[in-house]
């Protein structure tokens, strides 16, 4: 049953739930959410408030866009049919509910920013894992609902794979919570329904994440190569050997220059690795890595170069490039070919090229530009021309059907890319 109320009436109803101070229709607040042009934004403070807001919106025929930190492209919301829209911002849902130091898990509300969660964990000698600093401004909910390709480490895998359980509020106001266990064989992994659902299936209100002890030793290492292919071959061999670095990147010439600065000698290509873990293990891994990258034709760069790179890449607030890079997943066996065609297409444009998120199967090939005005879309087009498929999250038809079951009235708005 849809009631019809004026916008003020809707706002009043929602304010009843979250409290008047946690709802705003002020242009300054509302404009922050760009494309959706909501008439109001609500900041619920608890999972039950979230559920109540969703239920009210469904009952009132109001569309809801969910906002986390807005680090993603929060402005690509599709325009829904003519009906009132609100934004549900998770900002206030930023409590850490439990840190289980025995099981190494943290239960937190999903509006918490990753850097705040990380800071709190660090105080207990724990960490979310060796993920890139670029994620710091995102919220936990944002990372789970729209996992970026860069949230990956060869050592710990994808960030969202560390999600052991979560609770969700659906459009009809119902809530579910998945049981936390290391592994289960009791049907589909229902938590996975929501990972990557971009706000379209429900609001993730809390999540239990795996955490790690702060590593005993961290060792950045940089190798120079005469070409990207050789550097890739070395990195691939590393992945197959069982040495699992916390970070692993392969850089083309331009990117090496911008990340390493002056390395003392010209670097045509580089392989950067960060080993971490118990000291004794890191030493052995280092020896293996030396042998593997050496065999692939690499030359180790002086330690200060590696440390400098590591420090710089860790400091929060690294500026995202003027143009966000575009990337595509490529299997190892096709990487040589892919590099060749990308290089062919970029011969006259000085683009930055690097590989990241390497695993046993392949890597992400990234294209970036330091020139302003080089749109992300044109980079993506370049990848397409090279026969690669740039990342483009989209609901599969089945997920779309599930969305219609969980949210038949279409209250929740799925973000587009």
């Amino acid at each position, binding site marked *: 049953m849809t009631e019809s109320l004026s916008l003020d009436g809707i706002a009043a109803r929602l304010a009843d739930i979250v409290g008047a101070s946690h709802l705003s229709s002020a242009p300054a607040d509302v404009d922050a959410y760009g494309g959706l042009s909501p008439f109001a934004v609500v900041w619920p403070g608890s999972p039950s408030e979230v559920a109540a807001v969703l239920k009210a919106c469904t009952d009132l025929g109001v569309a809801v866009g969910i906002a986390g930190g807005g680090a993603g492209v929060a402005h690509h919301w599709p325009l829904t049919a003519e009906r009132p829209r609100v934004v549900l911002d998770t900002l206030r849902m930023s409590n850490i509910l439990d840190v*289980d130091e*025995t*099981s*190494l898990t943290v239960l937190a509300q999903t509006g918490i920013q990753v850097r705040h969660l990380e800071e709190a964990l660090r105080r207990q000698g724990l960490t979310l894992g060796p993920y890139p600093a670029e994620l710091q401004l995102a919220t936990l909910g944002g990372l789970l609902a*729209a*996992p970026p390709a860069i949230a990956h480490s060869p*050592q710990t895998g994808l960030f969202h794979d560390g999600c*052991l359980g979560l609770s969700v509020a659906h459009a009809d106001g*119902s*809530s*579910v*919570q*998945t*049981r*936390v*266990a*290391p*592994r*289960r*064989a*009791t*049907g*589909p*992994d*229902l938590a*996975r*329904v929501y990972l990557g*659902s*971009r706000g379209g*299936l429900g609001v993730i209100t809390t999540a239990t994440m*795996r955490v790690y*002890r702060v*590593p005993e030793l961290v060792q950045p290492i940089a190798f120079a190569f005469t070409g990207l292919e050789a550097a890739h071959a070395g990195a*691939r061999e590393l*992945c197959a*050997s*069982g*040495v699992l670095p916390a970070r692993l990147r392969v850089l083309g010439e331009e990117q090496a220059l911008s990340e390493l600065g002056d390395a003392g000698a010209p670097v045509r290509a580089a392989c950067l690795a960060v080993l971490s*873990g*118990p000291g*004794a*293990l890191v*030493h*052995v891994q280092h*020896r*293996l890595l030396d042998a593997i990258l050496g065999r692939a034709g690499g030359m180790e760069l002086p330690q200060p170069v590696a440390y400098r790179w590591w420090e710089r890449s860790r400091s929060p607030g690294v500026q995202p490039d003027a143009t966000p890079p575009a990337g595509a997943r490529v*299997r*190892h*066996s096709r990487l040589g070919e892919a590099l060749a065609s990308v290089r062919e297409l970029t011969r006259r444009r000085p683009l930055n090229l690097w590989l990241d998120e390497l*695993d*046993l*199967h*392949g890597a992400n090939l990234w294209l970036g530009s330091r020139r302003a005005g080089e749109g992300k879309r044109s980079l993506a087009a370049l990848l397409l021309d090279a026969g690669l498929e740039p990342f483009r*999250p989209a*609901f*599969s038809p*089945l997920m779309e059907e*599930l969305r219609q*079951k*969980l949210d038949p009235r279409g209250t929740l708005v799925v973000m587009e890319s």
Partner: protein
Amino acid sequence: MPQTQRYRPSPALGSELLAILPAERISQGSADRLIYSRDMWPKTLLSVRDNKPSVCPPDVVVWPESAEEIAAIVKLCRRDHVPLVPWGGGSGVCGGAMATSGGIVLDLKRMNRLLLASSDDGLATFQAGVIGQTLEDQLNRRGLTLGHFPASIYCSTLGGWLAARSAGQLSSKYGKIEDMVLALEAVLGDGRIVRCSSAEQPDLVPLIVGSEGTLAIITEATLRVHRLAAHRVFRAYEVPRVSAGCEGFRRALQRGLRPAVMRLYDETDSLLARASGQGRAAGGQRRLLAALGEELEARHGERIGDLKRLLLGAALSRAGMLSRLAERMLPRLSGGCLAIVGFEGEPSLCQAEVELFHAELLGVGARDLGEGPGLSWYQHRYAVSYKQSPLYAAGGFADTMEVAATWERLLPLYKSVREAISSLAMVLAHFSHAYPEGCSIYFTFAAAAEGRAKSDLLYDEIWRRGLQAVIKEGGTISHHHGVGASKAAYMAEEHGPALAVYRQLKAVMDPDGILNPGKMGL
């Protein structure tokens, strides 16, 4: 047995199937219907022992050879609401592959081909009906391994592994099957053929995986494969108590060590594990039996002759008491708990990990037993699967309850389950799938009762009490055997309101509810 409302086959079904499959791939024969009437749910053996071998016979068995054939069969079943039960190796232990409402059993074993293996990309694609050991052999021939070694590797299939979220003996290093799968092809309950991959978001793969045939029929899977390990090392320890062993395992894993094998046996299981490696009843087992024998003699003035028969037969009817006795006597008998670890891979890495692990275990008071017990375990790693025969033949029964919890909840869970069932059965436990955040416990219980009816009752009661204890302690009712028919009644408690989401998935993927009806508490 859980007989749900039975489908009444239409007489035309056979001839309509003939339009899809050649006659030799359709059977309504009585031997086929009998053999496909049960899986390896131990409770069905009570029925077999009672001379009732046909437990839940399907009306028809079919052997398709392609996803297209399956899609055509599904469409036929949709029209007439015919239950359709996917069947792999029938090694499931929860009645999952049993045609509890009749209908068609769809055996995938003719779809058993390796479609692609790439050492460069670390992946291989197989059809779902391939038998585990055959799959591993095919990879080994090419210098590769999946790293998945369930004790049922000889008798189960890839599709069954995926459908029931199987775990192998090297899971600490290689993960469970759900950690190994990258992409799937499956036929949904509405006849659509879908291909999905973990590169998509949201990822459909972990939703089809684990669905035990209730959402889709898996026809093909792309898996992560590794180079065959060049090197393997074992170490064994004696730890004073289960809690100390768990502590050592936890610390090691949380430091980032990834042994391929991690096994911790509780006091009772340790005695048997030590004995079994040596083939015939040896040291520990004989000591246990001898001690039990003495105690019994003392109490009842009975003379215990054949100690082995004691364990397997008559004595099992007093299993609860035996188990309590065993627990009381263990301190006198046992050298604590046996822990086995094994590492594989690059030799220097193995060596470093072994040393770090060693230090962790010494830190919890463990005593080094060298490599012997580990090697012996490895050599006999599948032997345990053959052991149920003598027990059933002697009139007893046994089953396994594999549950899991985070480390914080693990020991309370262990104690509660033991307490809940040790008055009914002899209980052994080992901890063999460990993760940084928690661990599974694999309980084995053995008991006996007079006659079928009493055995059935006792069997059900053990499960009821055991699973109630698991749920109370916040564990999961299954770590890798699945739910099937036997645990269906516990799904509501396991999932709470989230079960509704599973039902929605079912409504999307199998709108008519023809796929494996009556299972998973849907």
